C-alpha cells in the first residue's frame, strides 16, 4: 500500500505551513488530561496523548454558541428582528482526532443533516473542518470500538489517517479534502510500506479486548426492553449529572436560550442532557421523564435501541469508553448493553425448546 512518510522534521514544518491557511486544532496537555484546543503559532499538537477527556465534538458543536443577534431598542428599525450571528467558518483542521471520535461525527451527522432540515451551524463547521486522524496502537482497557462498527484504524469520517512510525508518522490520504491538506503541508513523500500499515491495523484491532454484543438489539421489542426489570438496578447509582452525555462524542442534545444585555440580545444554544430533569419538564410541571429511572433508561434506550431502529446504522456509541471512565458512580454502558442485548434470551431458548 502507498503511504506518505512524514518524519518529525516534515511534521513540524508541515504544521507550521498549515497554520497560514488553516486554523489548527489539536490535543494539548492540561493539568491532568488532554483537550482539543486551538493551537497557537509554533505550537505542536501533543500526539503522545491516549485520548482526550472531552471528545472533540466541540470542534463542530461548541458547548455554547451564538445563533442570532437582535436589538431590543425601539429606536432601531430592526428592533425585535433576529439576524444571523457573525460566525467564523474559515477552514480548520483537527490534528490527531481518534478514529472513534471521527466516526462519532458521522453518526451525529445523521441527526443534523436530514432530508427535511439541515442544521446550518453544525454542518458549516463540519464542512469547514479537515479531519486528520491518529490511529490507536495502544487502546485503553475501556475501549470497545471494535464492537461498535468502528476500530482503532477506522477510516470513516477521516480525511487523513496517521499512524505512528518511529518519531514520525505514516499517512493514508482518504479524501480530496485530505489530499488538499497533504499538498498544502508538503506531506508528499509517498512510498510503498510493504504492508506495515495493514499489519499495524490488525495488531491494534487484536489489542481491543473489551467487547460487547449488539446483535440482538435490533430485533428486540422496544416496549419489552423499555419495561425490562433491570432498569431500577442499572439506574440506582446514577446521580443524574451530565458527565456521560457531555463527554460523549455521539450525544448531540441541546437547549436554545435567549440572553439579553442592555438593549442587545442574542439567541444561543448550549449543550443539554437527557440526564437533567428539566430537559423534558412541561410548563405545567408534568415531567414525562420525571424519575432517574426514566432518564437513565432514555439515555441507554436512545443509544442502543431507538437509534438502531431509526437509522439502521448500528448503535449510537463508538466505544470510546469516556463515560465508562468518568462516570462518578461507575455505570458502565458495556454492562447495560449486554443486559439489553441478552434480555429475554433465556426465555427465548426455553420457548424454542
Amino acid at each position: 500500500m502507498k503511504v506518505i512518510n512524514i518524519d518529525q522534521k516534515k511534521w513540524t514544518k508541515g504544521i507550521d505551513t498549515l497554520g497560514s491557511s488553516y486554523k489548527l486544532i489539536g490535543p494539548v496537555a492540561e493539568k491532568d488530561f488532554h483537550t482539543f484546543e486551538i493551537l497557537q503559532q509554533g505550537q505542536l499538537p501533543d500526539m503522545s496523548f491516549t485520548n482526550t477527556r472531552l471528545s472533540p465534538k466541540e470542534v463542530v458543536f461548541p458547548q455554547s454558541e451564538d445563533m442570532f443577534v437582535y436589538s431590543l431598542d425601539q429606536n432601531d428599525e430592526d428592533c425585535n428582528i433576529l439576524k444571523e450571528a457573525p460566525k467564523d467558518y474559515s477552514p480548520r483542521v483537527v490534528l490527531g482526532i481518534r478514529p472513534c471520535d471521527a466516526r462519532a461525527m458521522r453518526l451525529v451527522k445523521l441527526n443534523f443533516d436530514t432530508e427535511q432540515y439541515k442544521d446550518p451551524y453544525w454542518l458549516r463547521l463540519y464542512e469547514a473542518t479537515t479531519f486528520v486522524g491518529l490511529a490507536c496502537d495502544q487502546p485503553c482497557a475501556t475501549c470497545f470500538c471494535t464492537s461498535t462498527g468502528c476500530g482503532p484504524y477506522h477510516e470513516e469520517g477521516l480525511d487523513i489517517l496517521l499512524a505512528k512510525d518511529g518519531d514520525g508518522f505514516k499517512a493514508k490520504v482518504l479524501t480530496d479534502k485530505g489530499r488538499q491538506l497533504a499538498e498544502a503541508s508538503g506531506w508528499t513523500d509517498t512510498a510503498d510500506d510493504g504492508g506495515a500499515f495493514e499489519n499495524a491495523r490488525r495488531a491494534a484491532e487484536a489489542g481491543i479486548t473489551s467487547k460487547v454484543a449488539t446483535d440482538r438489539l435490533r430485533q428486540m421489542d422496544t416496549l419489552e426492553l423499555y419495561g425490562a426489570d433491570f432498569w431500577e438496578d442499572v439506574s440506582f447509582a446514577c446521580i443524574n449529572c451530565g458527565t456521560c452525555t457531555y463527554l460523549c462524542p455521539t450525544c448531540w442534545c441541546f437547549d436554545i436560550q435567549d440572553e439579553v444585555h442592555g438593549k442587545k440580545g442574542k439567541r444561543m444554544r448550549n449543550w443539554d442532557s437527557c440526564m437533567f430533569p428539566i430537559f423534558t419538564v412541561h410548563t405545567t410541571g408534568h415531567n414525562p421523564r420525571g424519575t432517574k429511572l426514566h432518564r437513565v433508561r432514555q439515555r441507554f434506550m436512545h443509544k442502543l435501541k431507538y437509534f438502531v431502529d431509526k437509522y439502521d446504522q448500528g448503535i449510537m456509541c463508538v466505544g470510546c469508553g469516556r463515560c465508562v471512565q468518568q462516570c462518578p458512580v461507575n455505570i458502565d454502558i458495556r454492562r447495560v448493553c449486554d443486559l439489553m442485548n441478552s434480555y429475554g434470551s433465556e426465555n427465548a431458548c426455553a420457548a424454542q425448546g
Partner: protein
Amino acid sequence: MQNPYLPYPVRIDEIVVETEDKNLKTFKLVFLNKEDEEKFNYKAGQFAELSIAGKGEIPIGIASSPVEKGFLKFTVNRAGVVTTHLHSMKEGDIMGVRGPLGNWYPWEMLEGKNILIVGGGFAFTTLRSSIVYMLHPDNRPKFGNIDVVYGARTPGMLLYKDELIQWEKRDDINVHITVDTTDDPDWKYNVGFVPPITEQKAPQGDENTYAIVCGPPIMIKFTQPVLEKLGYDHEHIIMSLENRMKCGIGMCGRCGIGKELVCKDGPVFTLAAINRTPREY
C-alpha cells in the same frame, strides 16, 4: 443553506381575549414580508414556534386554517416565560414565527371518510383549523359526516364561541357543545364531561370513520375507552401530542417518545402508533 432556526418576522395584527379567565388570547399575526407568507405553507394540525426576541420560543398549534389567507392565528394559554410575555404584548408589536412544523392530520387519507372531532379545553386550536378547512366549500364535498364534540369547564371557557354557534346551526356538521358545569339557566347546549357526551352523541366507529382527539390528558384517558366501545379501531383514532420542545425540527432531542420525535415525526399520531412507543409525553 436555509436556516431552519430563523423565525419570520411578523406583526401582531389583532389580539382577542378568548376566555373569561383571560388566560387565553388569540393572536392574529401578519407577515412583514409577503414572500415569507408564501413560504409558510401549512396544513391543519401543524404547529409553529412563536419567537419573542429576548424571551425565547414556544411551540403552539396553528389555529387559523390553510383556507384563511393573509394571516396566522394562534390561541395561547398564559403559562410560562414566553407565553406570559406574549400576553403582555400589544397590537402592532413585532415578533417572529418559525414553521410550519411537524406533521398534520392525514387529510389525504381522511378524504371520503366520516370525521369525528373530540376536543377539550384550549386544545381546540388545531381542531378549529381542521373544521374551518373541512367546511370550506372546496373541501366539504371531500368528507362524509362531520361530528364535533367540544367541551370546556364553563361556557366562559369555550374558545371561538361565535364560530361554535354558527357551526351549531349548520346542517352539514353536527356540533355538540358541552360544559362541565354552568349556572346559566339559558344554557341550551350539553352539560357533562366530554367522554360521556361523546358516548351519547358520537357516531359509531366503522372502517369509514375516523376520530381526531385533542384535549387534556384526563379527557384523553377517559375518551379512549368510549371510542373503543363505539367501535373505533386504534388505527382510526388520531391524536395530537404535546411535549417540551426547543428546536421543533427534530434535532435538539428532548421531545422523543421512543424513536419518534413529537416535533418532527408528530405531533399527530394514531393511537395505534402511540401504543407502540413508551408513554413519555
